[in-house]
């Protein structure tokens, strides 16, 4: 599974926990639209910290930056470019 697909799959599981089975695209708003909640954001943050090495303590946490698959992906890319 490619890395972006891992994020999609993780978000699908988070949505399923909220009994939300609706499809979502890479540009679908998930947090600001209310489909996911703040506690999901921290579960996602832990997932990104553990699997993608994102350091939110250094970058700061902004819900807008994890609102869509594409936003998360650009955050991951930015984080890895900071490391190198």
């Amino acid at each position, binding site marked *: 599974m490619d890395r972006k697909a891992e994020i999609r799959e993780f978000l699908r599981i988070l949505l399923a926990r909220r009994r939300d089975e609706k499809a979502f695209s890479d540009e679908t708003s998930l947090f600001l639209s209310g489909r996911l909640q703040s*506690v999901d954001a921290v579960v996602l943050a832990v997932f990104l910290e553990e699997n993608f090495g994102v350091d939110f*303590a250094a970058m700061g946490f*902004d*819900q807008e930056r994890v609102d869509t698959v594409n936003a998360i992906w650009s955050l991951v890319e930015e984080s890895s470019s900071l490391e190198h």
Partner: protein
Amino acid sequence: MTDAADDGRAMPVSGLLSFLRGFRLIPRIETYPRVLAFAQTIIGKVTLLGAFGIGLWYTNPHWQTLIFLLAVITALPQYRRIVLTIGTLLWACGIWWRWVDYPRLVQVAILFILAALLFWFATLFRNSWFGRRPVASLLTGFALAVLLASDLPRGEPLRTVSWDFLTVAGAYLWCMAYSLLDIKSKRCDPFSLQLGTYRPFWGSTHTPFVKGAAYLRRIEAQSAEQLAVAQLKGLKLLLWAMILDLFLRKAFLPVVHGYMGIPLYEDVFEQSALRIGFPWYLGWASLIADFLEKLLGLSVWGHGIVASCRMAGFLALRNTYRPLASRSIAEFWNRYYYYFKELMVDCFFYPTFMRYFKQRGRWRLFAATFAAASFGNVFYHFFSDLNYIEELGFWRALVGFQSYIFYTIILALGISISQARERKIKDSSWFRGRLIPVLSVSSFYCVLSIFGHPEKRYPIREGFRFLAHLFNLAS
């Protein structure tokens, strides 16, 4: 018997259920292509504004100013955020000049300059202590200022001036916090646009409606069609607020307190505090009635504000959304007063979670939840009522807040446990999976509300005494 009659008999139960499930008192007009197209025409916009104006006339005493600003913002969608700032500044002049006991325009002007300076400083010196922790610094600074002001001798002009300014600063404190949080965004708005979120003209309390500039950027209508959807949803929400308001004032209150003779919760609580006996079931009845009344009142009020925000072209989420359908304590907190919960999450929950206890697993979530639901909650409410601190002094006022502090600790514990359990619970039957959780959650909040009135400063023992009355344990 005919086939048709058979069909008619075979259909009802599931047919009726699906009809009831899909039934909407107010239809989803924003999904009707013809309505959507009409709402994008000039006549359509005028009609929408006219209908909204009638609703405002019913619900809002300042409806003329509000509908005028909404008309301007509808006519100039390309300048929406600028109009929002200008409208909000005009609104602020109205509030601080005309709608308070005496004009405080100078204090507001100084406060806006101070907010601009803080914003500029945090932007320019991102790696300084203040730049890295702007919200924590702002809140600490405000708390220290209140502490110092409460120690100034009574009757001194400096004390009067300080409290006048702090009252205004307190009103904008959380708007400033959102502005400072926005600095970390990739597309941070300039301060001129941030000002549009400082108690916007559509209404606000100390809790910014609807959050800050970052949220407005995300929910702003980007096309004529999106604007039409937002405005149609705004009109629907205002209509819903009016229906709820009518229900509350013309049905709920007269039936509960008139026909059924259930006394007001405040009166029963006072009886308990004065050691006057009353039947336990009256205690329950007044408590439940008060809980439902406050829920309805909050819905009406919040819907009115969000409706105007939507009419201005921002598709904001509702403030209150079916809280009684919540199956967990955390879900109820999210649905009951969304923008307050978001404020606590943005200012306390995320910063704690992202910075501290990173190696402590579940304690990390627990600490963040306590920071938001307990510490942040107490901080917000304690510093919202500055008159009380001014009157009693800082430390006595804090002691007087014991009942609310207890409320927030139990609330945070409940949310923490609910978050931990949420991951384990699987769907079960309707009775166990839906009815029991919904009733348990509502009961938890209803009983906890005995301690959760920040404006009533009874000692905590009076809350426990009332609780004992409910179980017929107090004399």
